[in-house]
């Protein structure tokens, strides 16, 4: 027997078996919409067309009635698909993507909308990025539901499910139908020959039918095709949501700092002074002691306010600008930090503050994790971009995992159209760069 080029009979049978298996999988993955739509359409039309049955009226009226009934059936089909789609599309599209990756080496990356974190507001309510809720679990649940069902990618996946059910499904199911129908014919006396022919045709088609997945997957399984502008709007929306969150958390921190710190101490001072006022005539010694205590309290309140202010707008940054503020940071660090600067003037204030806090965070990370002995901070300005690089001779292995300080810096930088670059092989050295486009004053 002549072997086909590049193969042998064993290989052909493997191809056929594989093809049949893939056809079964694809049929399963694409039949959901059809399984819902066809019974609804058939049952719906049986019911709807029965309404005008036996109607004796002029032809025009009957035609109108039939048209109305058809529209009702279409509506039912659409509603049933709309109910099934959010529940199934995402899982089906993900499975189809896995198949495409495994069988065709098609690497299709899509991003589903992530569930945003929830923030406790100073008012005690929980903000999920869209609404306020009374409890944290409710806010989390709503954030999850919102992210899942308001995701443009989900609806694009729905379009895949619909398109696949009219393209991939019929083609992939063809070999299976041929086998089934051919088997039935082969067992029917008189049609055996035809039946075997149909089975053979089905087997011959099996290695090819599933390949319809390729072109369809490239067209429909990818990320939502939005314009560049649309994508930018989405990015900006995400940044804004992020900023709202950060800002809320920041305000809350300040509020708590004032409430538990300076405010409480002022109350205590007021009370002490009241007590001293009472005692000043009868027991001047005790009054003096109380006043001394009140003075100590005022000193503590000042110290607390000072550290709070440092976290909001560090005084050196306000007075001297970025370069000197970073030098002051370097002097206060617990490792040896060298600062090199080639920034000729002060950058815009918001950028300056963002870069300052990023460098502060990076230096704190170095002190906490890197076991470094020498750290170098380089500040430079070129091509309208302010760059700060923090490099150390520590153990490396820094990464911007979620919730880490580095991802916080990354978010802060994105808000200004900047970026964060991390070079930190295990074993070190680490070199982290933040770069932000900005103007100098």
């Amino acid at each position, binding site marked *: 027997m002549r072997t086909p080029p590049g193969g042998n009979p064993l290989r052909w049978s493997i191809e056929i078996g594989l093809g049949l298996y893939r056809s079964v999988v694809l049929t399963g993955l694409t039949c959901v919409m059809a399984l819902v739509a066809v019974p609804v359409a058939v049952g719906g039309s049986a019911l709807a067309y029965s309404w005008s049955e036996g109607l004796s009226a002029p032809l025009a009226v009957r035609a109108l009635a039939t048209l109305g009934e058809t529209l009702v059936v279409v509506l039912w089909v659409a509603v049933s698909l709309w109910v099934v789609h959010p529940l199934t599309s995402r899982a089906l599209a993900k499975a189809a993507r896995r198949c495409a990756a495994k069988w065709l080496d098609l690497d299709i990356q899509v991003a589903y909308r992530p569930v945003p974190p929830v923030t406790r507001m100073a008012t005690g309510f929980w903000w999920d990025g869209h609404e306020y809720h009374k409890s944290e679990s409710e806010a989390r649940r709503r954030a999850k539901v919102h992210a899942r069902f308001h995701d443009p990618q989900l609806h694009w996946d729905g379009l895949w499910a619909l398109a696949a059910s009219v393209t991939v499904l019929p083609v992939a199911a063809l070999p299976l139908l041929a086998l089934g129908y051919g088997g039935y014919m082969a067992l029917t006396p008189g049609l055996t020959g035809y039946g075997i022919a149909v089975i053979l045709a089905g087997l011959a088609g099996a290695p090819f039918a599933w390949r319809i997945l390729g072109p369809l997957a490239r067209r429909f399984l990818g990320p939502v095709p939005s314009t560049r502008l649309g994508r930018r709007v989405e990015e900006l929306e995400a940044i804004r949501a992020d900023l709202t969150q950060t800002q809320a958390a920041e305000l809350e921190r300040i509020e708590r700092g004032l409430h538990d710190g300076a405010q409480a101490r002022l109350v205590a001072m007021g009370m002490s002074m009241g007590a001293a006022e009472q005692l000043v005539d009868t027991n001047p010694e005790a009054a003096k002691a109380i006043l001394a205590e009140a*003075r100590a309290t*005022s*000193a503590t309140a*000042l*110290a607390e306010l*000072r550290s709070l*202010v*440092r976290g909001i707008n560090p*005084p*050196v940054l*306000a*007075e*001297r600008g970025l370069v*000197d503020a970073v*030098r*002051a940071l*370097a*002097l*206060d*660090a*617990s*490792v*040896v*930090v*060298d*600062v*090199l600067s080639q920034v000729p003037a002060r950058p815009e204030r918001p950028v300056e503050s963002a870069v300052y806090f990023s460098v502060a965070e990076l230096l704190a990370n170095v002190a906490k994790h890197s076991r470094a*002995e020498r750290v170098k901070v380089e500040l430079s300005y070129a091509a309208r971009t302010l760059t700060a690089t923090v490099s150390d001779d520590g153990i490396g292995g820094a990464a911007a995992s979620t919730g880490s300080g580095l991802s916080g810096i990354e978010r802060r930088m994105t808000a200004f159209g900047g970026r964060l670059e991390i070079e930190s092989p295990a074993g070190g050295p680490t070199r982290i760069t933040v770069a932000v486009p900005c103007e100098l004053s």
Partner: protein
Amino acid sequence: MRIVVAEDLFLLRDGLVRLVEAYGHTVVAAVDTGPDTLDALVSHRPDAAIVDVRLPPTFSDEGLQAALSARRAIPGLPVLILSQHVEQLYARELLADGHGGIGYQLKDRVLDAGQFMDAVHRVADGGTALDPTVVAKLLGRPNRADPLATLTERERSVLALMAEGLSNTAIANQLFLSEGSISKYTTTIFAKLGLANDDDTNRRVRAVLAYLGADGHGDQ
């Protein structure tokens, strides 16, 4: 003493003037902006000046800059800088000229009138009055091959109090030691830091501070 007060907040300026006058000194000028401060310092040549770091018109470090320029014109002009926050960076800049007559304190210290006026006197006498917070930072920073690392715990605390500007007697009182042992400690400290030993206490303190301030670490 003839004193210049530079502070932009009316209440605090007024309070400082009253305080200084209550201790029997004369306020020759009470100013509230950076340029006025420089004028007052240069034209009055006061025995001591009390200057806020942050002053109009820019509300940056106008007061500090005025003090530094005045001291460039009149070396050793005694200035006590007040601020809501203390920074090693500023302390180093103030100490860099090595002339003494420098104070750098948190505004909180005004709350203790006696200690504050002590600091003013030390500055007027050409000594130093650094805030304990900034001294702690100066001594606490890491440094490779730092002679400070060779000091014992006790020697470090003596050095810290010296940096604040205290005399041997005051240090002895604070540490509950005899004056004799304090002077032994200071001799060891100077030997370890490689500083020539001469008799003038203030000069020695200034030498220690100049050593702390002048190595320019982290500043390039």
